[in-house]
């Protein structure tokens, strides 16, 4: 266990260093890259901010609470971009393009590669930090008492939300094991779906649809439900445990589907190879 942890941190340290070197070597490209990411973030949350401004909140959510929700959603996005860059989160691309072989020739368990190879703080932090800023500002404005317990709930809900998005990405992306060409870009679609819907408060949505948005397409757990619990909008305190627990279920499903795909891959391999997007 200790050896694995040491290796994990060593690999994160190395990949983080690689990312920093890339940034320092080509600072101009990095600036453009970071700027375009910030524009992307602003564009993603602007619609909801404007709606909130125009109607002085959305449903039972005040403007500041909406800002909290948006900050949380952007943080989830930023964290995933930070840890799972280089198409680790968009796994359908790696599978569909035949690039999984590059992982298979590395002498370490595959999970270790998947949780480390995409670590790119310079690429992800320009998204994560604005989200953290929004969430921090809203927390202060709302007068939330930031206690160790609240911070712990925030951390676990946040990790749960990240795991849910990541797991959904792998459940959907694993289709590329069976249909590499057709499903190569399927993670782009699943990611876009999540990105576009994650900022909506789901109060007032019909129960059947809400059920779907918490199970089949678990948009509700990306930001809405955990924000409700962290803002004290859920009547039961135990609600703070729901997102972390649900994330374990989605994580297990994602693992199961991915492993089935891998077993299939061992027999079929990949008949195509595209270098596009690999390690660049």
């Amino acid at each position, binding site marked *: 266990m200790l050896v694995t942890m040491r290796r994990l941190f*060593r690999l994160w340290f*190395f990949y983080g260093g690689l990312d920093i*070197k890339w940034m320092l070597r080509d600072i101009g490209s990095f600036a453009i890259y970071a700027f375009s990411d910030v524009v992307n973030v602003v564009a993603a949350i602007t619609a909801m901010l404007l709606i909130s401004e125009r109607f002085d909140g959305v449903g039972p959510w005040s403007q500041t609470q909406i800002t909290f929700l948006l900050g949380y959603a952007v943080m989830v996005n930023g964290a995933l971009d930070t840890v799972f860059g280089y198409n680790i989160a968009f796994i359908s691309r790696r599978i569909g393009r035949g690039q999984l072989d590059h992982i298979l*020739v*590395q*002498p370490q368990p595959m999970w270790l590669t998947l949780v480390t190879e995409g670590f790119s703080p310079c690429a992800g932090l320009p998204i994560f930090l604005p989200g953290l800023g929004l969430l921090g500002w809203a927390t202060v404005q709302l007068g939330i008492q930031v206690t160790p317990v609240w911070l712990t709930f925030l951390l676990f809900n946040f990790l749960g939300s990240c795991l849910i998005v990541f797991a959904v990405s792998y459940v959907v992306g694993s289709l590329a094991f069976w249909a590499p060409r057709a499903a190569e870009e399927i993670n782009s679609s699943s990611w876009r779906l999540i990105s576009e819907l994650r900022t909506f408060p789901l109060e007032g949505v019909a129960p059947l649809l809400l059920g779907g948005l918490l199970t089949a397409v678990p948009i509700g757990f990306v930001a809405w439900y955990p924000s409700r619990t962290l803002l004290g909008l859920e009547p039961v305190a135990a609600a703070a445990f729901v997102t972390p627990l649900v994330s374990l279920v989605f994580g297990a499903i994602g693992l199961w589907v991915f492993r089935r795909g891998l077993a299939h891959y061992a027999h079929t*391999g990949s008949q195509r*190879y595209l*270098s596009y997007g690999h*390690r660049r």
Partner: protein
Amino acid sequence: MDTDADPSSLLGEAPIVRLDGVWKTYEQRQRSERLAGLIRGLFKPEIKRIDALRGVSLAIRRGEIVAYAGPNGAGKSTTVKLCSGLLAPTRGSVRVMGFDPVKERVRFVARIGVVFGQRTELWWDQPVAASFDWKRVVWDIPTERYERMRAFVQDLLGLDEFFQTAPRELSLGQRMRADLGLALLHEPEILFLDEPTLGLDVLAKRNILRCIKDLNRERQLTVMVTSHDMAELEQLAGRIVMIHKGSIAYDGDFARLRREFAAKRVLTIETPIGEPAPTLVGAELVSSDAGRHEYVFDGAQVQIAALLDQAATQARIVDVETHQLPIDDVIADVYERWLKEGHELAREPIPEQAKPAG
């Protein structure tokens, strides 16, 4: 199938690579051109099974360079993928250094090197040096070994001139040298090279081949290299395994192959359009079109001058060309000939596999 025994105990004459009756079958979904067929295919798809390998048995000893040749689609890359743990066989067994490459992947790949000519393991936007550093960390190469091997491959492959350059700025030949160096950093016991010289110019190709030979000579590195370029393989390896339609058509040394099969040559005689093709004793007319007449003859038995003398008495010769029979034709020829004759494949016996203790 797991074994805790140290596979490095498999020394001497025991094969380092052993394939026993390996079949690899792929499934291809067939698509109908008709609407009815398309709809039927939704519910009951028509699956075509393609045998990429058909009962291949092969043994490679430590320190050998084995050329694995065959036309496109013959099964070369499939074999390399099976041997490097990227694919599981449909039937039969694959053992490399005593490992099952798929089931014991992590421990296995730590001891092999793989280079695919059309793929790169290098980080595209980082200097070559960063990729080497990456290999050190991920492969957990001890510092002493890393420093020693880095110096060795830098010298052997001449990497100094572009070691701090990103692969995206390198020529194909430079990138290939860097990839080969990267594959050698952890001192693999066996190197699998799949079309390592594809797309390279003559000079770059020669450099790569020289390096592989040096590695084999100086370090007893076992090499399995695939290519469809027979001349290239002949420079490199003493032994050639030829595969055709998923079966081994020839396994032996190059000299015998040349003597027996590749002595065939092609002679093209050009005459004015409309003149009939000359009849040449000792050569077989294979095509005749618009005054270009192509013959195949055995270069070891028949003199070109004799054929030209015959031709000159029958037609006005405008131009003459001669060249070796293309490798694809040689392989097809060999295979078909043996198939027709019911000939046992020319194979060396596969030695008994040494069984790891414990």
